[in-house]
């Protein structure tokens, strides 16, 4: 029945939008360089005033880094939907932003100018959660499935990279917790704020 509805929408010439949020949890002190990448991408995006092209390039860099660190992947989760209306897609994307932002505290950082750019060593139980939300046009089978397995997640991240180069991304969000070196995400906080994570 869902496919009949989809064919109907295609017949009417509507664009198919896919919204997908991917959560990835990494563990181990060795993942601290990723925080540097994430913060740099965020800074670049703000300087570019939200230019999707710049944010897309940052997203590609993050995905490539995540793929390199797949040994440290501990758990993951994903969710998403297919929509045929641009306004509804925009609303869903906003909902996901607010939902993602509620998983952590966004406190202003103290002045980082004095801190040397050397990664502080995190404790051995270091946890890092990265949440990526995208909205794109068309179909992307690699994301429209269950990504809670290492192979599927690898394919999913590669698909996101391809989407950027195909110019199909209409919205990108990147959230990460903790915010910077030295902050800690404890196992309890992980369980409480990211309950949907499934061990890989």
């Amino acid at each position, binding site marked *: 029945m*869902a496919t009949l509805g989809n064919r109907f929408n295609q017949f009417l010439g509507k664009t198919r939008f896919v919204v997908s949020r991917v959560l990835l949890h990494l563990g181990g002190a060795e993942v601290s360089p990723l925080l540097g990448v994430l913060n740099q991408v965020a800074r670049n995006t703000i300087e570019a005033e939200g230019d999707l092209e710049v944010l897309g390039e940052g997203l590609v860099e993050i995905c490539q880094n995540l793929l390199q660190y797949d040994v440290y992947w501990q758990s993951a989760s994903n969710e998403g939907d297919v929509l045929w209306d641009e306004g509804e897609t925009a609303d869903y994307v906003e909902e996901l932003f607010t939902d993602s932002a509620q998983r*952590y505290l966004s406190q202003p950082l103290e002045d*980082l100018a004095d801190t040397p750019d050397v990664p502080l060593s995190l404790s051995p139980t270091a946890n890092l959660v990265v949440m990526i939300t995208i909205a794109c046009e068309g179909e992307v089978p690699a994301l429209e499935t269950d990504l809670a397995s290492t192979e599927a997640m690898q394919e999913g991240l590669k698909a996101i990279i391809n989407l950027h180069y195909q*110019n199909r991304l209409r919205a990108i969000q990147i959230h990460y917790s903790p915010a910077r070196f030295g902050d*800690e995400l404890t196992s309890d906080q992980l369980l409480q704020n990211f309950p949907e994570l*499934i061990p890989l």
Partner: protein
Amino acid sequence: MLRKFIIVLMSLSLCWTTLACGSSSTTTTSNQTPTQTVSRNRTQANVGEYPVQQAEYNDANGEYSLMLLNTPPGTPPVYRTTNLQMARLTDEQIQAGKGTYAQIQGDQATLYLTEDFKIQYVHNVTETRTDPSTGQQQVVVVRQQSSFWQPFAGAFVGSAIANTLFAPRYYVPPAYQPGGVLTGYGGYGNTYNSAVSDYRSRYNSPPPAVKNRQVLRTTGNIASPSNNRNTRSTSGNIASPSNNRTPSTSRDASRSTGSGVGSSDLQRSNQTRPSRTQKRTPSFGSGRSRSRSGGSRRRR
């Protein structure tokens, strides 16, 4: 029995086609929000070649409005699209008396113009404001300025470069400057995206038609204060639910710190939707419902 079946089938197909035709809607081109959808006005000219009396480009969304002549009765003379390619009329065509004309194919059009044809350029001065009710940032048009754009002004005929001007391509206007006529182009390409990339490489930022559609959202103060030169992060805390918390000394032990950035060029609809009481149920993913118990049923 068969008759009944045929009658039912015929009435169904009638309903089907009526639905298909009746779903288009004309959106008013109010210039309040530049992110307004380009009207897929199916009553505008659909196919054919029409002389063009005048043309306008709106940099809020990159939409061209063409005033066509000799449109068939019942079809309005104004044609609007964002999907427009341009090419210069050859000398032979001009000598034969051909003026600026447009070739229209549905939502896509190609404009063939003379060297001295001027397109009216509507420049939107925009500001990013925060919607008081939702706390989200919106790009709002503050005022409009009008100027002219002459894409093929001063193009030399006979040179190798000039030959490429006769094949239709996508053009992006040069950066807006008040007073005087804008000449030439800011970017070109065989696709709209490559024209935008060309503009980007020239000016180091996207053209206003693209820029005005993108909205940035941030949580947390990501830029370090020492680098803080008019970045958006200062207003970004609006998206953060912890905006009202007391400063960093009191830490909420249930949550760690984090940051987020997002950007989107999706056009928000202006209809007021009923606010969702429940979170949307995803149609695919690793767990069908956001069950806090942790045990998620994986339904196919």
